């Protein structure tokens, strides 16, 4: 659902040292994609999950989670229904 906002690509690269930095880069490069992930306060939307490798950043330092070279950041919308 988010790919339409970044030209259909599935992977983007970043050299940012933190998740916050990566999201800021995203805001510059793909503002409409960023708007789907974060609200205007910069917070990640409630139903969007951001993982660094296999860890949800909400379970750690949030978007201030540091990134190491080679880390994979996955943006995964929650799936719900009834």
């Amino acid at each position: 659902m988010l790919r339409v906002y970044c030209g259909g690509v599935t992977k983007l690269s970043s050299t940012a040292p933190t998740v916050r930095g990566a999201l800021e880069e995203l805001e510059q490069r793909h503002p409409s994609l960023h708007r789907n992930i974060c609200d205007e306060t910069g917070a990640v939307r409630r139903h969007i999950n951001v993982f660094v490798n296999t860890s949800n950043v909400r379970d750690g330092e949030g978007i201030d989670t540091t990134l190491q070279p080679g880390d994979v950041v996955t943006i995964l919308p929650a799936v719900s229904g009834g």
Partner: protein
Amino acid sequence: MPERVILSIGTKKGQFVAEGAKTRRSFRAARTVRVGVPVYSTLIDTRGTPRIFASSCNPFFGMKVLRSTDLGKSFKETQSAPAFPKDDGRALANIWSIEPGKDKKELLVRRRARVAVPQPRQRRLVGDGRGHQQPRARAQVAPRKRRAVHAHHHPRW
């Protein structure tokens, strides 16, 4: 007298556009757009070339304004959406109504704000790591303050 009547319907289940004859005796749901996304407000804007606007209030991906220039055959998101200034501290929680503004492009948006509150820290599990573990109660968080705000929005198409 118009040849046909267009009805734009916003529902919690999505946006529908219906069409009827000028007698208005019956309408046929002609097109369905964005099923599953609540649309709290829709506007048929007759200033100049008719356009249909709809507020797409997606709890997952945020608030957007959709625009149709072909009477509902297709909708596109406007390039910009109503939002609070970055340093304001509030986030848009809903778009309750869209109304025509003063000039041809302006939309009046009635919106609801959500005040950001600190998120509780990670829930910790109690116990010795063996057997059944119960999560501790969630951290106390101040209730969200909600209020409606009127704003002028100049969307970029």
